């Protein structure tokens, strides 16, 4: 079947197409060149409408144990946002941490076609994939968390060589079916289990005598040498601590030019100036990112309102539990592997700290110059639920709207930010880069986030509207793998995306040590740990897409 989208204005940064009128032809799920002498079976007249690839969220907590604890913790938050079933949709609930089906529908209804879970604990990876297996409409994938697991820290303490580390990283990635490697508060989750309540970049984990800086370097090297396209995905040390901008700058220096992605960097860009000893490090952060081309970031913008923070960083979550609103919170130590912490938050525009957090996120968005190295996230649900993206896009694209909002926040916070003086407005092409082309490139997806010949036909069509929030919250059409799945902002067909993975080679002899370790210290046999391909596909809906890796020694 040949489908034609006629007359749309295409923004496709991957192919350097910037707002050009262009017809798109779709066959067998992919974009094809204009066929000769063949009439389309189906034509959509989208004259004058804005066409982009399906959007990709590279950091959103949509699957895994901590998210499910967050769901269970907040029944009152679901009660305000029930979602009824229809002939084609399952029932579910919103709001801060929606149920899986509702997550898929709502993403698709905003024009998204892929989302990545950024904190897959290897021991909890089955759950992450099973939950994502119940997220319809989207492609998905997970970054596998390492760096506070005892096997790795024992290797570091024993000064194992980089090759051995690489083998372990690749083995874990394969066992947990991941597409990238994540580190959360490097070594800090482990340190908390030894009762260290904080851990600076150059502070030793007191049991292993290993520092976060050493962990960053070792894992970033492994990712590079294994050829994993997505740079080491880093939730840095000292999240939320005033003055942590210095930690962040030191971390950037610490990886010595290796590719590194700093996630929810807003939470890591705080100074200690001013009457309240809390200030913006947004400009310093942006300068460092502009200068260091090895770096990429996503912002983790906060929005005002109720949410729940869900993080693997139980050390920092424990430290922040006093801010929980409502006053209930969960921390867990997990399986000599990692941990998690759930703390409900209500960000308020009249609270000085929250107001400045909001401004810092926007400063970072507007001061980082290269749209290929910065990504649009709220660290869902930690800064805000993903459903706030259209509002965020309006803040980026509309200076007067942004300044109107700025005028409503805590007055002392207004004085502590340069936001009002920043005149930049994101262009349509830049938004397409942040949310499509750039996100596909940095996660190593082949054939996604782009509208060239041979790319998968994940396509979103919007009606141009001066009010960018209105425009981006309700696409006219969304096509997933060539099928029309959303019309006028409503799901019209349920489809199931693929799971993206990478599988760098490793020396199988790594399993000798691992088997002994599992038998002695863990609670599961090594043979029962790895997730088989069957498990990913036996429900009849799931599939795997393996992306290439090209390793290089450094």
């Amino acid at each position, binding site marked *: 079947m040949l489908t034609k989208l006629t007359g749309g204005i295409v923004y496709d940064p991957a192919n350097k197409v910037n707002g050009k009128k262009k017809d798109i032809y779709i066959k067998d799920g992919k974009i094809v060149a204009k066929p000769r002498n063949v009439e389309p079976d189906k034509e959509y007249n989208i004259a004058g409408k804005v066409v982009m690839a399906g959007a990709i969220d590279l950091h959103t907590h949509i699957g895994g144990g901590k998210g499910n604890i967050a769901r269970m913790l907040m029944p009152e938050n679901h009660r305000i946002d029930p979602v009824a079933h229809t002939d084609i949709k399952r029932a579910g609930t919103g709001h801060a941490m929606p149920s899986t089906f509702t997550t898929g529908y709502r993403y698709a209804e905003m024009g998204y076609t892929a989302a990545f879970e950024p904190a897959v604990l290897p*021991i909890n990876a089955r759950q992450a994939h099973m939950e994502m297996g119940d997220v319809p409409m989207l492609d998905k994938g997970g970054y596998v968390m390492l760096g506070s697991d005892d096997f790795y820290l024992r290797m570091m303490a024993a000064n194992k060589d980089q090759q051995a580390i690489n083998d372990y990283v690749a083995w874990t990635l394969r066992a947990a079916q991941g597409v990238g490697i994540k580190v959360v508060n490097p070594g800090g989750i482990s340190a908390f289990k030894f009762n260290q309540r904080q851990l600076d970049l150059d502070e030793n984990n007191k049991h292993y005598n290993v520092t976060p800086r050493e962990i960053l370097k070792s894992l970033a090297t492994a990712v590079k040498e294994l050829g994993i396209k997505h740079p080491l995905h880093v939730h840095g040390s000292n999240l939320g601590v005033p003055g942590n901008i210095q930690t962040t700058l030191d971390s950037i220096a610490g990886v010595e030019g290796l590719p590194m992605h700093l996630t929810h960097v807003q939470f890591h860009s705080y100074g200690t100036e001013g009457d309240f000893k809390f200030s913006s490090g947004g400009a310093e952060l942006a300068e460092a990112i502009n200068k260091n081309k090895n770096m990429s970031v996503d912002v983790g913008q906060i929005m005002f309102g109720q949410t729940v923070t869900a993080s693997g960083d139980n050390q920092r979550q424990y430290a922040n539990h006093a801010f929980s609103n409502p006053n209930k919170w969960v921390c867990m130590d997990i399986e000599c592997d990692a941990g998690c912490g759930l703390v409900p938050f209500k960000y308020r525009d009249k609270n000085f700290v929250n107001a400045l957090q909001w401004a810092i996120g926007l400063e970072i968005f507007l001061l980082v110059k290269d749209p290929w190295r910065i990504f649009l996230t709220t660290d869902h649900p930690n800064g805000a639920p993903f459903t706030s993206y259209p509002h965020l896009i309006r803040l980026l694209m509309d200076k007067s709207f942004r300044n109107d909002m700025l005028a409503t926040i805590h007055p002392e916070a207004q004085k502590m930010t340069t936001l009002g003086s920043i005149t930049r407005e994101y262009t349509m092409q830049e938004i397409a880069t942040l949310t499509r082309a750039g996100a596909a490139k940095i996660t190593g997806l082949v054939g996604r986030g782009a509208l060239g010949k041979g790319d998968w036909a994940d396509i979103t069509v919007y009606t141009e509207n001066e009010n960018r929030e209105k425009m981006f919250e309700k696409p006219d059409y969304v096509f997933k793998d060539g099928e029309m799945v959303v019309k006028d902002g409503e799901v019209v067909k349920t489809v199931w995306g693929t799971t993206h993975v990478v599988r760098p080679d490793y020396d199988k002899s790594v399993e000798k040590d691992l088997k002994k370790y599992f038998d002695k210290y863990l609670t599961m046999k090594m043979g029962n740990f790895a997730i088989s391909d069957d498990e990913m596909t036996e429900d009849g809906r799931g599939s795997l897409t393996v992306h290439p890796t090209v390793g290089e020694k450094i």
Partner: protein
Amino acid sequence: MTEITEVPSPFCGIGSDDLTIQADGVSIKVTKNGCAVNTPAFEQAITDTSPRVDGKEVSLEWAVVRAVKILKAANQPVIGGCATDVNGMRALMALADRSGSVVDNMNFTGAKRNILAMQDSGWMNTTLAEIKNRCDLFIVVGCDLEAFSPRFYERYLWNKESMFLDDTADREVIYIGKPPSGSASTSPNKAKAKVLECADADLPEVVAVLKALIKGNPVFADQVAGLAVADLQEIADKLKSANYGVVTWAAGALDFPQAELTVQTICELVKDVNASGVRCSGFPLGGKEGDQTANQVCGWQTGYPARMRFSSDIPEYDPFLYDINQMFDNGEADAFIWVQAFNSSAVPPQGGKIPTVVLGRSGMTFEEEPDVFIPVGTPGIDHAGHAYRLDNVVAIRLKKLRDSGLPSTAEVLTAIEQGLVI
């Protein structure tokens, strides 16, 4: 005869996955690492393989047709048990969503004590591998742990080696409430568990005093429920000087009114120990008959644990109103589906003469034959699947051990759901 090693068990809740079994046709023998819970559960013979309608053997298709008819005629169907694997629970939720049913896990009345506490104030918990490697002080509140889980001590406390303890035999075990029924809690160097015995009904008071002592609040009594406050003070001091104390309880065993408040007190005292400057964790016991699995799947699909309903086309959660036993007593249900793929002696509660469909483990016998009985395969024996361990983080991959021809819960429930579409 086939030997299969590293077999995981869905029965014991603690995820033992080192069993060796021999399969001879459809008969199973546990030849290594069995226990009083797992061995009989694996070895139970298959008795019936045919579905029955009104007590007569019929084809699966016919049994499904009857089940569909019952659901179509119902105003308020309820689905109880929910004892199955992840895919079974997924199918159960899809059916409940389509039919507007109540979903009620059979262990929810116990589990609710934990869930209510968690949803009100949260907790700080840990998992089995952390216990195995770190725990130096283990406190059991109101539960006979070895009866609950015969291999718990062997696997997770008296393990030979641990990463962070010099000698695991030096761990200290203390019971508050029920004394242990055997000697599993006695350490390899013969140190017996210390026991502060009291009645279950006295636990709220005893635990509250322990919490006060940890906080350093003044306690003027010398005795509480027959226990010396000085002995409780000693436990408080030990918790505050341990490197990694763990306090465990089984919500199902705390069978007295408002036991959720006792669970909450336990969770809060764990937080207090952490606030005092040392680490300490809670550890709720459960995970049997697929209860964690039911709550997890229901949780991610609806946002709520497994006592909820779809009656108004949306998920609604109420830990009290949607108790199916209470609904039966009040005449609020008019069709009943019972799902129990693990345990043939867990028969459905009497639904009060309403049409009843049972998906049960082969061998289930009834005082009153249900309208429809469909013997289903047991996850981890008859088909592969996934089940959650008690610590809620680890889903174990269950293996298929034999070819019994029994359908899975998921297959049967999906067929019923599809029947409702037509």
